[in-house]
Structures are given as structure tokens and as C-alpha cells.
């Protein structure tokens, strides 16, 4: 059975699948598929769902906010800001909303922490300034 390697890369890390039989994604022109031995190609994926079939016959799904797909030397790599993997599209959508909410919460916490640091820094500078002036 002919297969190819798949690497999914984003800002959180990477996932590699050594034996993929088929990939189905979509760009601005529509849905397309990639099979082993495909010609070298580059595509800009659109927002939405991409899927791939592994050598055990199981489909895996990835939700992507766009990304760059590159296929060469029988290896496929997809680089995206963020991707979410799942084995069932319905569950993936449900998980996506949860994950997004968590990311938002983490971002909000990080912003609050930064604001606190900022305020402390300013207070310290003001203290140093007043001590220096006295």
C-alpha cells in the first residue's frame, strides 16, 4: 500500500503521521485531494475542515484557520497558526468552541498579568524618582 508522510505544524507544536493514504483539503478554488506520489505542489488552505486517511483506514480531521500546504518528495506539510485535530467532525466542532474559550481566557489572564507588571514598574519608577529628587 502506497502512503506518504504528513506533518502538521503550528505555534503550539507539531504532529506527524508516517503513513497517510489520502488527504482532502480545500483552498479558494475548492476541495482537492492528494494521493501518494502526487506532483510537488503548494496551496493556501482556506478556513475550515481538512481530513486525511491513515493506513489503518481511519479518517482524522483537522480544523484550520487557513494555512500553507506543501507537498514534495512524497511528504506533506501543513503550516498553520493553529490547528485542532479530531477523529469525528461533530466532536471536533464542539471541542473547538471549548478550546477557543480556554485560549481567550488564557489570553485575558496574560493581559491582566502584563497590566499588573506594568503598573508595578511605573510605581517603582515613580518611587525611585521621588527618592532621587529628595
Amino acid at each position: 500500500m502506497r502512503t506518504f508522510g504528513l506533518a502538521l505544524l503550528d505555534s503550539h507544536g507539531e504532529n506527524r503521521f508516517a503513513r497517510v493514504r489520502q488527504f482532502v483539503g480545500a483552498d479558494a478554488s475548492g476541495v482537492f485531494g492528494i494521493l501518494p506520489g502526487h506532483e510537488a505542489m503548494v496551496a493556501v488552505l482556506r478556513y475550515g475542515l481538512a481530513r486525511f486517511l491513515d493506513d489503518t483506514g481511519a479518517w482524522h480531521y483537522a480544523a484550520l484557520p487557513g494555512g500553507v500546504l506543501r507537498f514534495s518528495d512524497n511528504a506533506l506539510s501543513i503550516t498553520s497558526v493553529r490547528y485542532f485535530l479530531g477523529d469525528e467532525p461533530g466532536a471536533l466542532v464542539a471541542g473547538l468552541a471549548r478550546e477557543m474559550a480556554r485560549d481567550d481566557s488564557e489570553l485575558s489572564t496574560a493581559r491582566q498579568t502584563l497590566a499588573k507588571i506594568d503598573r508595578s514598574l511605573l510605581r517603582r519608577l515613580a518611587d525611585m524618582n521621588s527618592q532621587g529628587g529628595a
Partner: protein
Amino acid sequence: MRDDEKLIADTLRDARRLQEKAQRPAAWVGIMFYGGTLGLLFVVPIIAGAYLGRWLDSLVAGYSVRWTMSLIVLGIALGAYNAYRFLKGKS
């Protein structure tokens, strides 16, 4: 629309499309093509076995159907295996 809202909306749309596609009844052309392929995979080894067996039996002195019967049975087994692999690949 924010980027994360767009991602959820577009992923939901694609998931629905996939689900609709899976639930859509198969077209007649598809059913005929599928059935035809399955039939050919099963029947061709049996017919090939029968012809080959008949030819081998004609080489044997006197009346014989031993090769014909043996190769037909072998053809049935091979055809069933072919059909099984085809069905397994499609599921």
C-alpha cells in the same frame, strides 16, 4: 466576524457538508458501477478457472473433468477473496 468565530462557523459548515454527503442516497450509476465491479471481481477468476481447467482436461487422455472442477472451485475462492478485499477497502 472574529477569526475564531469564523473558524468555528466554517468548520461547522464543512462538518455538515460531510454529514450530508454521507447520508445522501447513492445514485443509480454509482450502484451499478459498484455492483458491476464487485461482480466482475467475483466472476472473472471462476470463468478463467473453468476455461483453463477445460483446456488442461482436454490434454488428458480419456474423459476428465478433474481440472475443470478443481479450477472452478479455486476460482470461486479467489473471487470471494477479491470481493472481500474490495468491500473491505470501500468500508
